[in-house]
């Protein structure tokens, strides 16, 4: 039979699970060891923050929290590959990317602590807030990319989505319109193998999640999402392509959720301890540390000192969060519309009186 079309999905990895180089053609940025150290430090910071947030939740000082344990490399690669004026549209646990872009831990805590002010964060004002309705953020990124295209701005939109979320209608719609309109959008599927209790295999019959982009005519790539170098190289490539008008891309970052889904979840109900144990052998920090130590770019002493520094910083942020008073009751009215409609004035007054 004649062939109408053929496709190939490549797999990208530089650092294997033990921190050895899987290939020699290191991208330029990765030859700058100082930059790698800095990113490694950021990953460590995120991990320390993550543990602290869980502790806060367990002691009743935070609401439900979605940890990011194991995803640090993927998120740091995303955050560090973007320019400030690019737009980031996340789901709800991409803290590494957001911290890199200027969001403060105290803001993050405020959000999970039940206070909308967490979303009025110190990161770029054009970045979207955490997005709970799965997948919907991808179309916000596509709309942003369309705005850039219309205004002829050399900016790129990046969205993230989970393996579960890659089944959601909005995600596929975002990919499709990206291909149809040649939008500068980079979609990253953070495949951590689980959507709460549903394993990756139950989401789709597709061999890779990267190939979701084929349906949209996008270039697709599968990456070791625990390998900061590969992830960053993939993001650099995709963002550059998009910025230069060559269209969007669909990247699957293969990683693993080492934590529960959220603090409201108990993953032992549905997955084996062995699977988690195996995944720890592939986690992103260990391999980067090994790699940097082999290069003599990082030492155990530096690690200890940096961790202490992180802890002090995180503690200060936690305190700032805990000391933030609740908003007054009228705060629930004041951002519903740009101006409070007359129809609502009485309700607000009533609420204020009630206190």
């Amino acid at each position, binding site marked *: 039979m004649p062939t109408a079309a053929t496709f190939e999905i490549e797999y990208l990895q530089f650092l294997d699970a033990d921190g050895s180089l899987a290939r020699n053609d290191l991208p330029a940025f990765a030859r700058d060891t100082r930059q790698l150290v800095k990113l490694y430090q950021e990953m460590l910071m995120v991990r320390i923050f993550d543990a602290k947030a869980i502790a806060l939740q367990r002691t009743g000082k935070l609401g439900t929290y979605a940890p990011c344990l194991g995803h640090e490399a993927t998120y740091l690669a995303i955050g560090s590959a973007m320019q400030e004026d690019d*737009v980031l*549209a996340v789901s709800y646990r991409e803290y590494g990317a957001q911290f890199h872009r200027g969001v403060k831990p105290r803001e993050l805590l405020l959000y999970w602590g039940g206070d*909308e*002010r967490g*979303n*009025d*964060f110190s990161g770029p*004002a*054009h970045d*979207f*807030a955490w997005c709970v*309705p799965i997948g*919907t953020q*991808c*179309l*916000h*990124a*596509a*709309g*942003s*990319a*369309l*705005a*850039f*295209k*219309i205004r002829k701005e050399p900016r790129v*939109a990046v969205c993230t989505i989970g393996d579960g979320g890659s089944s959601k*209608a*909005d995600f596929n*719609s*975002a990919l*499709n*319109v990206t291909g*149809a309109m040649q939008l500068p959008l980079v979609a990253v599927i953070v495949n951590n193998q689980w959507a709460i209790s549903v394993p990756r295999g139950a989401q789709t019959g597709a061999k890779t999640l990267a190939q979701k982009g084929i349906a949209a005519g996008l270039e697709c790539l599968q990456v070791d999402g625990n390998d900061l170098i590969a992830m960053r190289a993939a993001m650099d490539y995709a963002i550059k392509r998009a910025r230069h008008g060559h269209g969007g891309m669909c990247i699957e970052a293969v990683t693993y959720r080492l934590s529960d889904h959220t603090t409201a979840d108990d993953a032992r109900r549905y997955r084996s301890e062995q699977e988690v144990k195996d995944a720890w052998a592939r986690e992103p920090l260990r391999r980067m540390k090994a790699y940097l130590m082999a290069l003599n770019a990082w030492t155990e002493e530096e690690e200890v000192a940096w961790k202490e520094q992180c802890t002090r910083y995180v503690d200060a942020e936690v305190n700032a969060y805990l000391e933030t008073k609740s908003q007054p009751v009228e705060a629930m009215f004041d*951002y*519903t*519309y*740009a101006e409070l*409609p*007359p*129809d*609502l004035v009485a309700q607000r007054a009533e609420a204020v009186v009630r206190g």
Partner: protein
Amino acid sequence: MAQITLIEAVTQALAWEMAHDPSVVVLGEDVGVNGGVFRATLGLIDRFGAERVIDTPLDETTIAGLTVGLAAQGMKPVAEAQFEGFIYGMLEQIICHAARLRNRTRGRMSVPAVWRAPWGGGIRAPEHHSEANEAIFTNVPGLRVVLPSSPARAYGLLLASIRDPDPVIFFEPKRIYRQYKEEVPDDGEALPLDVCFVLRDGSDVTLVTWGAQVKETLEAADALAAEGVRAEVIDVATLKPLDFDTIHESVRKTGRCVIVHEAPRTAGFGAEIAARLAEHAMYDLVAPVERVTGYDTHIPLFRLEMKYLPSVERIVAAARRTLAAS
């Protein structure tokens, strides 16, 4: 100055605002070369180009999500749902994001967008082309819901909707798209988004309605006038937020109220107006409130649809009941 129809007024408003504000873009299915299936966007692509008059892929979720993204990044998108019956795929984006982004981010981001859709029955259209589903939107905080019923109001309210910093659902009563023409100066003058329009003064009974039913309601007022009954007719036009004051003031005067809409009765937006009367106008009313509405069934295919829509006779009969009651 030309006489134009309601749909031409929509086009005129879009063109005015696109000419004066480069951040305004129009997007939807067939809005480009085809000018929309009703021709609401006729000629816009020639004037403003395909980058601002955007034919999207056939997916309402896409349209709605793009709209949120565009608006959040400083554009003023006017999205079209080809018919109100196809707006459901947009609801998650409208309810969870358009209506909430300002609140979620404490004002850091907002969604100054408009969702337009031809609305309502009575044009012998196929299934799903005749719904009146405005009630779905009226319980959602953060939205405005607008439903003009004349060329002039379509023009002025659409301008206001595009300029409004918050998301607006703008339904266009397709049955009266071309019902009559009137002079609508193309002067960029917007109308306020928070007042009802008193179309006719009267002292005996208040008839409250919106959309295509304004036609039957005015005819009912004529019929009542012939019997010596002076009906006040109010076009709500901006359903949410609601200008209840104008309605209340009228009922204070008349003591009687008939609410007319073509959506199904139960939990239609008429219920909200009746509820506010029950809360605030009990001592003004001299007769029970009446609702003349579509039945609590699906609007039938077109062989029966006119039996479903409120008729002049039904409105007159309800008004007479309020007069007999007291």
